[in-house]
């Protein structure tokens, strides 16, 4: 199966899952209330996050145009289709320039590269927009790996106790005692450098924190009156976990998801710096541009574009994370504006 077909299918699947989750969540007055409160507090940050999500989805839907001439045509995504098909220049050009940066030869598309072009003549705005998909992949896929793992093992350890608890606690303390960046590097070195492998490595290093929290909370929930009552009424263990334990952990999951997301995207930037990141990420753009500031005259647009996109996404997610924590967890101290 070709890559773009898979990614189109994944987009459909994601939309379906999102619709299902929204419907499920929409039934509960408490979650609806939390959603409204979040929207009231952080409209701008949510809009920024929404824009990046939309970009990522649009960039994941791709198809091959019917070939006019001979030769191979790579499939182009909706984001690619915003730009003309043959948009590359020979090398660097400044934002909105009419001529090349070195040499001064005329550009093929004068004045149309809003953020200039990079060393290979690729349009920087185009690359930066495409970076949204990689960032979302890193944040999203990692969370999809880490959260179910943490939830399952945490509930099993906290609710079940006994041998399971011992085993999970041992696993947690072992993983937690390896400095996380080192663990990340080792995992990627050993299992490989592809996008899936990097996300798995990030997932493996990040489930520990949530698992510890979930375990503690499940331990507490086990003793609560309504769980005891359900048990006395003869509810099966499975249904107690499903109906009473997991729903009461969900706020922790949502909070952790948001916090994980930004730390994962930032970690990816660090990995890209070490040459272990994902292709096309903002981190990789920054890594490739690291020497450009040392030139004279300086080439600033590559670095500026990648880092402002990265900064905008992380800032939005951080702000949303704070608001989510305030809205969902009444015990934490309310802080900030």
């Amino acid at each position, binding site marked *: 199966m070709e890559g773009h077909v898979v990614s189109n299918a994944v987009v459909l699947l994601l939309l379906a899952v999102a619709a299902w989750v929204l419907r499920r969540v929409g039934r509960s007055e408490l979650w609806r209330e939390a959603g409204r409160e979040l929207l009231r507090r952080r409209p701008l940050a949510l809009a920024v996050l929404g824009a990046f999500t939309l970009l990522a989805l649009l960039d994941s839907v791709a198809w091959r145009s019917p070939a006019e001439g001979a030769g191979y045509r790579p499939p182009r995504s909706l984001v690619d289709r915003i730009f003309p098909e043959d948009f590359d220049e020979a090398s660097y050009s400044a934002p909105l320039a009419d001529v090349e940066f070195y040499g001064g030869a005329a550009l093929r598309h004068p004045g149309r590269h809003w953020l200039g072009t990079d060393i290979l003549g690729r349009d920087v705005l185009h690359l930066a927009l495409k970076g949204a998909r990689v960032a979302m992949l890193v944040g999203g896929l990692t969370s999809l790996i880490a959260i179910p793992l943490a939830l399952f093992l945490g509930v099993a350890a906290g609710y079940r106790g006994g041998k399971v608890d011992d085993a999970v606690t041992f696993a947690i303390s072992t993983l937690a*005692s390896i*400095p996380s960046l*080192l663990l990340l590097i080792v995992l990627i070195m*050993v299992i490989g450098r592809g996008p899936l492998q990097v996300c798995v490595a990030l997932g493996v290093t990040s489930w520990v924190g949530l698992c510890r929290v979930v375990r503690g909370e499940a331990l507490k929930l086990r003793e609560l009156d309504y769980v005891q009552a359900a048990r006395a009424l003869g509810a099966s263990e499975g249904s107690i976990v499903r109906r009473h334990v997991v729903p009461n952990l969900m706020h922790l999951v949502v909070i952790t998801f948001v916090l994980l997301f930004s730390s994962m995207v930032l970690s990816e930037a660090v990995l890209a710096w070490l040459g272990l990141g994902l292709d096309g990420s903002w981190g990789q753009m*920054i890594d490739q541009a690291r020497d450009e500031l040392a030139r004279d005259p300086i080439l600033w647009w590559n670095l500026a574009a990648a880092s402002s996109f990265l900064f905008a996404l992380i*800032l939005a997610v951080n702000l949303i994370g704070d608001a989510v924590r305030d809205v969902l967890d009444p015990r934490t*101290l309310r802080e900030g504006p």
Partner: protein
Amino acid sequence: MLAYLVRRLLYGFVTVLGVLGLLFVLFFLYAEPIDIARRALGDKAPQAALEQWVHSHGYDRPRLEQLVDHYRSMLTFDFGRSDADGTLLSDRLWRGAGPSLTVTVPTFVLGVCLGVGLALFVAYFRETYIDRAGVVICVLAMSVSIVLYIIGAQYLLGKLLRWFPISGFDPRPELVLRFMALPWTIGVLAGIGGDVRFYRTVFLEESSKDYVRTARAKGCGDGRIMLRHVLRNALIPILTHVVVAIPLLFTGALLTESFFGIPGLGSLTVDAINQNDFSSLRVIVYVGSVLFVLGQLLTDVAYTLADPRVRLE
């Protein structure tokens, strides 16, 4: 107390055994020996050379023998030689420790002092514009990647303002400050946002407690309350935050070191990545974890020193 320490040490030892087990699974069971050889020698190496490499580095011995050898060499800190260039790994670790500590210890001390100081300042002005602005600045600072701090600070302070040399390292005391000022600044900057916010939350939580109100009712000044009451009582969460980070000082600031050409453990790690040197990587991770486990033990001891109510049982 002693019984507790012994038990904790034992538990820490078991954790380290677990880490070693994980490393064995990753490096000896998951990674194919021929693959390790190919990474070390390059894709184009002939099959015979690969097999020769595997044999001479002992990756073709029985698994059990490798397992025993792995545990023995790690636990006795007899790390052997690097797969990549045959140098003694323990030598390299010792040589790298000095430069790494030169980078990280001052960064750490400065960071903690500045962080606690700023957080106290912000918490003192709680519910005012100073506090709000402080939180906003912290969130902004937290959202910038460390990679950008490095590039930006080097460009601004090193190239534009020419305050510091752009990169390099010199262990002579009179030159250390010159070369290290830039890495130190970057290290402090990169961590300060999150730290200040964390400390501020701790301080605010502490200052909403009853004893603070009592102190205020008795006519104690705000500044005195902050320094004598809140700061001292907030030490416990701060200690946890701080002490756990101490062992990380040894493994160094990976990015800063490689960017500024400081020959420390961070650079060693980056070299190991670039050369696909699994033997070095294994040792660095192991040493990092041992130190981390010791750090956690240290935290517990620090608790009793900071808070006489805490009894280690």
